[in-house]
């Protein structure tokens, strides 16, 4: 392993992380809910009574974020290298997996760890481990 200093962006990463923490805090203080994006999304697909509005508003905020950002500054590069077939397979895995796990990077990785939840720590270790292993296999074992 060697650190790629040309790609490493420590300050913007920290600043962005603080904003993510603030967003999660806003949702907690105004709506009493945890900012877990997979759970919020699932509740839109399969809504319970009187539980849809805040979910739609939060997701609208996510979708509008790049639009509002671009009004003030140039958007950083969005680079998606995967083929359409891989994107579809990956999307299905992420959709199914996060529902069985009841959470994703935001719900378990940020909010769950911020609440010192052992369940979220187990989930985060599992998806990070699987992510590291998958990229290793794709880039260094099966790549020609």
């Amino acid at each position, binding site marked *: 392993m060697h650190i790629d200093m040309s790609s490493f*962006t420590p300050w913007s990463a920290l600043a962005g992380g603080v904003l993510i923490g603030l967003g999660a805090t806003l949702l907690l203080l105004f709506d009493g809910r945890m900012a877990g994006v997979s759970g919020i999304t*699932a509740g839109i697909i399969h809504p319970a009574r009187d539980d849809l509005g805040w979910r739609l508003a939060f997701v609208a905020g996510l979708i509008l974020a790049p639009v509002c950002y671009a009004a003030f500054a140039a958007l950083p590069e969005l680079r998606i290298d995967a083929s359409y077939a891989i994107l579809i397979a990956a999307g299905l895995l992420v959709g199914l997996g996060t529902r069985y796990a009841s959470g994703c990077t935001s719900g378990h990785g940020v909010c769950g760890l*911020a609440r010192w939840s052992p369940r979220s720590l187990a989930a985060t270790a599992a998806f990070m481990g699987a992510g590291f292993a998958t990229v290793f296999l794709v880039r260094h074992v099966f790549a020609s």
Partner: protein
Amino acid sequence: MKRIARLIGALAAGLVFGWGLIVSRMFSPAKVLGFLDVGGAWDPSLALVMGGAIPVAAIGFALAGRRQRTLLGEPLQLPTARVIDGRLVLGSLAFGVGWGLAGFCPGPAWVAAGTLAPRALVFLAAMLVGMGLFEWLEHLRTSAASAAASSDVLQRQDA
């Protein structure tokens, strides 16, 4: 009035959360994959994103936990599950494989979809189908379980 305040709060939360994903560059799969590629030229940025987000969120949870109410005076509705079981671990492993293949997880998928990039929209659509598939499988499982339970009752009545 409270209803409107709740909606505005959730919209603002989504915007700030989304800006965080843009500022940190994590809405871009190439950036996320740079972190997951520990065998190559490793980009540790994502670790610092979590290092920034978790302490701030922890302060939020500590504040909310002390009040046990939102700023609007309503009760918190937080997850209560504590069990670490096969569903949690296998689900997380499957999620991690998908995350490693594409570099997208649910939050960045919504934010990137806001740019209308076709590849982001395709990933998002597949993710929503995956979530729908889960609802369908759960429906099958619970209806099979209740059918088994009711046939069990019938058999006992027969005997």
